Structures are given as structure tokens and as C-alpha cells.
């Protein structure tokens, strides 16, 4: 699986970041397992420790299993001014998890992130690749319910 | 695409596609599409205008619509607006009359006085 992803790219080091994105995105638990690192290391002919260095440097990569849907709530100042703290509190209540944790059913992981660049519609969050703006507590419930319903 | 002339060709064609967004239009045709206009067949009138203009490849004519104009007894009502000329209003339009207006007025610049119900603003 990992090797197939690797082979879409030339075996040069500069493709590492793209390969890691692909591996993580296609993994059902949205993370990069250590076995995958070994495969990538061999394919690109770089030491595994270089890959771990890169993995841990960038905040979007995870080395531990996560939920099916990654919620990333923006905690940067423009969203903070517009009430992102309340959104975080509400999300914790709806999901029953703390920041960085995954719900028991494995549906959601709650994360905080830096500016998503949609500040005109603050507060915002991103679930996987979709951005949700002008959040309110009611909207949060709707959005989460809807995704839960889709399964 | 190898030359600036090639680019120009594409540009002119694309500008034509975008003329609704404020290109160079010589004539604007405004169809009154209030409830009574529609009841009297304004949609058919509008459609015929669009078709006739497309068939003749008239690139500088814009067809648009407006609300009730208050001339209920003469619906469907159509304004033909040309830059620098008084507005001409046609009444009791039908698809056949539209064809004539396109040929006479839009293409040849001759008002079809039989159908005119008002001129000027």
C-alpha cells in the first residue's frame, strides 16, 4: 500500500512531504505508522530518522492513530476575537473529548490549528478538507450531527 | 498557441462569451417580464430574441429582462435601447414580430413603426 503510493512519485527526497501527505490521507486512521516510514525510507533511500525529523516538525502529520474525521479549530487571534474559545468549549462538550483526543467511536479527532486563512468568516474550523465558517454553537451541533449521520 | 495573434483570437472569442459582464454592446433589448407580460407570452418573446440573435451571430446585442412596465394592455412589451438614440418601445409582441424587429431594427437600424407604442424615455 505504502509502496504503491511511493511509486507515484520519483524516488527523490523532495517528494517526501507529498508522499507523507498521501500516506496519511489514505490511512483509515489518518496517521503515519512506523512500518510506512520504513517503506518510504527504503524507497527514497533516506535514513528513517530524517523522515521522523520531518514528520514531527510539521503539525499536520500524526504518528498516532486518529479518528475518521479530523476537526481542526482555528485558535489564531482573529478567530479568538470572534469567540473561538466558546466554540472549543462547545466542541469538547458535543464530542466528549479534550483537545488532541479521539472520540470513542473513532469518528472524530479534535485538534487546534493555526490560521486557516478564512478570517473574514471567523470563527472557523476545518473538518478534513471542508472549511466551516461563521460558527455558532448551534451550527457546531448541526455540522457534527450531519457528519455523524453520514457515517 | 505560438504568437500574440493566436492569443488575440482566443481573447476576442472569450470576450464575446463574457459580454454580459460589461463588454461592448451596441443594442440592448429589454423584455418586460412582469406577471402580466409572462401571462401574455413574454417568455416566448424573450426566447425568440435569444434564438434569432444567436442564429445571426450578433455579438453586440444584449437581451435582458425587466419587471412590469405599466403597459398591461400592450404586453408583452419590449424596449430596444441604442447608445445615443431615444429608446423605442414595442408592444403586443409575438415571436413573429420579434423576428421582424431583429431583421429590421437590430440588424438594419430601421424602427418597425407598426409595432411601436412609445419612444423616448
Amino acid at each position, binding site marked *: 500500500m505504502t509502496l504503491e503510493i511511493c511509486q507515484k512519485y520519483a524516488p527523490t*527526497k*523532495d517528494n*517526501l*512531504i507529498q508522499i*507523507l501527505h498521501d500516506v496519511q490521507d489514505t490511512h483509515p486512521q489518518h496517521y503515519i505508522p512506523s512500518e510506512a516510514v520504513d517503506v518510504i525510507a527504503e524507497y*527514497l533511500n*533516506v535514513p528513517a530518522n530524517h523522515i521522523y525529523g*520531518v514528520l514531527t*516538525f*510539521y*503539525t*499536520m502529520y500524526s504518528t498516532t492513530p486518529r479518528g475518521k474525521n479530523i476537526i481542526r479549530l482555528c485558535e*489564531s*487571534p*482573529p*478567530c*479568538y*476575537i470572534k469567540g473561538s474559545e466558546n466554540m472549543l468549549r462547545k466542541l469538547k462538550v458535543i464530542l466528549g473529548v479534550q483537545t488532541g483526543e479521539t472520540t470513542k467511536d473513532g469518528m472524530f479527532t479534535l485538534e487546534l*490549528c*493555526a*490560521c*486557516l*486563512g*478564512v*478570517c*473574514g*468568516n*471567523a470563527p*472557523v474550523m476545518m473538518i478534513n478538507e471542508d*472549511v466551516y*465558517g*461563521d460558527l455558532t454553537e448551534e451550527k457546531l451541533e448541526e455540522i457534527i450531527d450531519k457528519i455523524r449521520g453520514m457515517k | *498557441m*505560438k*504568437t*500574440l495573434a493566436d*492569443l488575440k483570437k*482566443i*481573447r476576442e472569442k*472569450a470576450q464575446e*462569451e463574457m459580454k*454580459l*459582464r*460589461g463588454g461592448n454592446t451596441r443594442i440592448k433589448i*429589454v423584455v418586460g*417580464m*412582469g*406577471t402580466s407580460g*409572462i401571462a401574455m407570452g413574454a*417568455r416566448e418573446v*424573450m*426566447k425568440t430574441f435569444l*434564438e434569432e440573435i444567436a*442564429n445571426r451571430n450578433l455579438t453586440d446585442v*444584449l*437581451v*435582458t429582462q*425587466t*419587471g*412590469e412596465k405599466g403597459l398591461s394592455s400592450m404586453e408583452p412589451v419590449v424596449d430596444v435601447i441604442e447608445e445615443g438614440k431615444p429608446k423605442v418601445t414595442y408592444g403586443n409582441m409575438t415571436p413573429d414580430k420579434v423576428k421582424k424587429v431583429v431583421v429590421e431594427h437590430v440588424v438594419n437600424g430601421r424602427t418597425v413603426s407598426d409595432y411601436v407604442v412609445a419612444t423616448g424615455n
Partner: protein
Amino acid sequence: MSLKRIDLLICCGSGCISAGSLKIKERFHEVLQEKNLANEINIIETGCMGPCDYGPVMVVYPEGTFYKAVSPEDVEEIVNEHFIKGRPVARLMLQDDEDRTFSTKKEVPFYQKQVKVALANCGYIDPESMDEYIATGGYEALGTVLTTMNQQETIDLVKRSGLRGRGGGGFPTHIKWQMVHDNASDEKYVICNGDEGDPGAFMDRSLLEGDPHRILEGMMIAAYAIGANAGFLYIRAEYPLAIKRIKLAITQAKEAGLMGDNIFGTKFCFDAEVRTGAGAFVCGEETALIHSIEGSRGNPTPKPPYPSSQGLWGKPTIVNNVETFGNVPTIYLKGAEWFASMGTETSKGTKVFALTGDIKNTGLVEVPMGITLRELIFDVGGGMTGGHKFKAVQLGGPSGGCLTAEHLDVPVDYESLKERGAMMGSGGVIVMNDKNCMVNIAKYFMDFCVDESCGKCSPCRIGLKQMLDILERITSGHGKDGDIEELQRLGEAVSKLSLCGLGQSAPNPVLSTIRYFREEYEAHIRDKSCATKVCLDLMHFDIDKEHCIGCSLCARKCPVTCITGNREEKYTIHQLDCVKCGNCQDVCPVKAVSRIPGMHMEVAAKREADNKLTNHYDD
């Protein structure tokens, strides 16, 4: 030949998408299909139109009718009334406080002081159609440059225009180009920096999403000028739509022969690739960005050597910001003199700003350099929301500084802002009203920089953390004499000693808020009071016995049961147990609960008595 009579432009920038514009687009398709109008009306997805606060927004041509805050339920009415009967729907148009209605885009005050150069096509063309870009004059500049100008003439034209980098530093663009041009090498590279990360800035995203071909054209002109044949667009992974659109644009340009070998029949060949980030703010720094493209950790390296001599894979490289490239094609089309006629003595042309915070018209605007902050915030931005008072504006994100009401008439250009402790940065304008605590805001920016510090150099890694600790102490009521001076000392040291721009500029928000709001810091430290009642440790809740009707709602809603009382004696909050959740204030039917600035006496006394707490502060 088409029968189209209406162009419906729906803003599908990320802002409007987040507000639901895609659903509206689908609904239009459905309704038009039902009513058999699909062949008369063009639905065009455009990039960002600017006024994100009004989202989802759309414009209906030929009239140019501007609709805001449209919901899927409104679609049928728009089709029935406007498209069929020609009666635009007034209730969806913009109205101001005086009940004036602005029916067309031209009339909307938000657009009136704007001059669009880089953003000219954003929200006007379909970003996924190369032909629409060409219709607006796209790729003509490239063709003209390639067929009629040599490299030096190309650079000289940018020099005459006075274009400076739009990403933050404001470095003159032509100098970068000239340096790389003069460095002989078998390979050279052009990099477009789309790693926009400043909180409060989103112009690069909007440009990449809304007018991707413009950026490619700008890059290719730069590549020709310096003698490069390859380029990379480094875009942060948080911008999936921008990545998708720019990749599509590259494919289209290659198919049309506008990218690849022998462009416009000349010897010039060029290829571009997209590389994405993975969530690291520091990668906006050019050396860090280069390392990231090479597949390594995005750590900055000391300069010199500059990328212009040893950049990507050790070859001469220019790194220009998205907006900088966005200006390039228009400069060649309309001339250097035209561009230089806008702006101020040292800052030419226009600048895109992202207006956010407590301002009415949040969104993206492009204005001539030298406009005053007052015009930007009150005329273009429409002033403050909810009738609140303007307190401060943070320019340039976490690298910039705060300015106050006394600076409202300062012209916005690189030098004027720098003199006053702020900076242009990438153009983020975060407007704050009098409900914001400046110490808390400074803490937030510092928290951001601590999170984003790559950790390579110690002034930034350790110094910023120390500053954050002090700020947390101050906002939690443990501030002490000398804290302000310590913050200043640390801030200056970090600025001077850090390796890259992140650390060098990270203390700016703290230093500028100390400069202009010192009394707020002092009140937090000395009086243990936050006048804006934002810092929870420096405020308390209180029940006004005069107004309390003894309904017990607050006591029942209190999560820590720290409110007791009865109908006769009314209710009291036991301050030592209060967690400041605010539930009591929310539920009180007679508004008898209020926030009072300052730490409650009981809490203050307990803290003093309990010296175990002196070293404890909230994480």
C-alpha cells in the same frame, strides 16, 4: 452561439464556501433545470469577491445586481422574481444603517475606494477557465515581454514601477531579480511563496483560488527576466482549493502551449510544479521554505548566503510572494509609470488588505498605498460592529504591531508603519474594539509564535517562551513589579539575536502594546484588574441584590454550586469557588449578574495567604 442572457457569478472563495455557497450553486442548477432555464443562464463560480462578511455573495450580470447572505431557500425567489420576471430581490441587497439600498456592485460602498490590480479578476472571472483570464488581457504581458524585450529591459521595467515585495519585508522586487539574473548558473529557480500563515491574512489564498493564471504569468515573466526554466509554487496544505485551482491552471497552460517549451515561439521554456506545506508557519521564511521543498524540516538557515546566490538545491533562486507576482502582469500591460503613479514616494501601487476582527465589512480589499488607516477601516471597512468604539488595529499579524486611535490618520505605507512600531507585513488588518484586552491579545500572538517557533535558535525558542510565561503570569494575576521592563528587555534581545524573521519580529506585538497601552499592563500587574473583564482571574461576577428577584435560576445553573441564597435574602456568589463560567450571567432573567473588573477581595486575600500558589499559574 449561446442563448445566454444572464451571467450569475457566485463567489466560491473559501470564505463564501464556508458560508455555504456551494449548496446555493447546486440549488440554482436544480431550480434552473426545473424551470427549463438552464440554457439561458450561465452559472459561474468565481474566486473571492472580497466582502466575506456578507457571504455567500453573488453578482448578476448584465445589471450587476449584488446579492448578499443568500441562502438555499432564497434561490427559488431569485429565479422566479429576478431571472424570470426581471424584478431584482431587494431584500437580499445590501442596506446600510440609514436604510439605503445598494442594488448593484458598483454602488456598494465597500468597493468604492478600492483600486483593483492584483485582485482585478478575483470574483469577476471563472478561475477554472483560462479563456476568461485571457479575455481580460491575460498572457498578453508574457507574450509581449518574450517577443519584444530582453532580460535586462524586463527587470528595468519592474524597477521603474517601484514594485516591492508584498509578503512582508517590502524588499524591492527588481533587486532580487537583478541579483539572480547576474549570478551565472546552469540552473536557476523561481519560487512563488504561497505559505501564507499570518493570522488574519488570506489574500494569497484568494488570489490563488480566484485568479491562478495571473500568478503563473507573473512567475513566468520573472523566470524569463532572471533566466530560470523551472519554478515551484509552495502552497500551504491548509488551502486545498488553492492547490486544486493552481494545478488545474498549470495543466491548462501546458495544454495551450503557454507553458512548456518555446513559449510564444521563442527560446524560453518553463515548467512549474506545486509543492505543499504540512502545517509550519516558519516555512513562509524563504530559507525554511526552500528546505521544505527539498524534503527536509523547515528550519531557516543563516543569511548570507542568500537564496539569490545559493537557493533551491544550491542554485540561484528568487522567492516572491503570491501577491507580488499578481501585480507583475498588469505592470507590463499598463506600464511602469501607470503603476508608479499610485501610492506614495517609497511605496508604489496598490496593496491588498485582509480586514478582520470587530469591523463591519470583513473581507479582502485592494487600495492604493498611502490611504489612511481611517479610510481603510471606516470607509472601506464600514467601521466598527455593534456601535463599539475603535480601540486598536493590529497590522502585519504576529510580526506586526498594534496602532491606536491616535494613528488613524497615518498613511499606510511600508515606512510610516515601521516608524510607529507596526509593519505592513502581508497585509492582515485585525481591528479591535474597546472590549479587547491588549495584554491578552499580546499573549495570544506570543502563544502563536511560541507554537510556531522551529526551535533551532535559542533566542526564539527560549526567549519567546519566557515572554509568554510572563504574560501568562500577568493575565492570571501574578504579575509583579519589573515585569514590563523584563518583557521589553527580552523582546529587544530576541529581536536582535534571532536567526530568522519569525523570531526577529515575534516580540513586536508585545513591544507595541507596551508602547501604546502601558497603563493596561500596569493595571493588570498593580491593581490586579482587567478593565475589559477579559482576563478571568482579574475580574469577578457579582449579583446585584437590589435587582435580584431570588428566582434561583443562577444557583441551579452553576456548575460548581457556588451560588446560594433564597427568595428573601437573594443570592450570593461564593467567590473562592467561582470558576467564572458565566452561566449565571447568561441565565439571569433580570440581568442582575454582572462582570466587575478586578480580582475579588476575598480571592486576593486568599492568594496572598496561600504562598503555595505563588509559583502556580494556569497552563
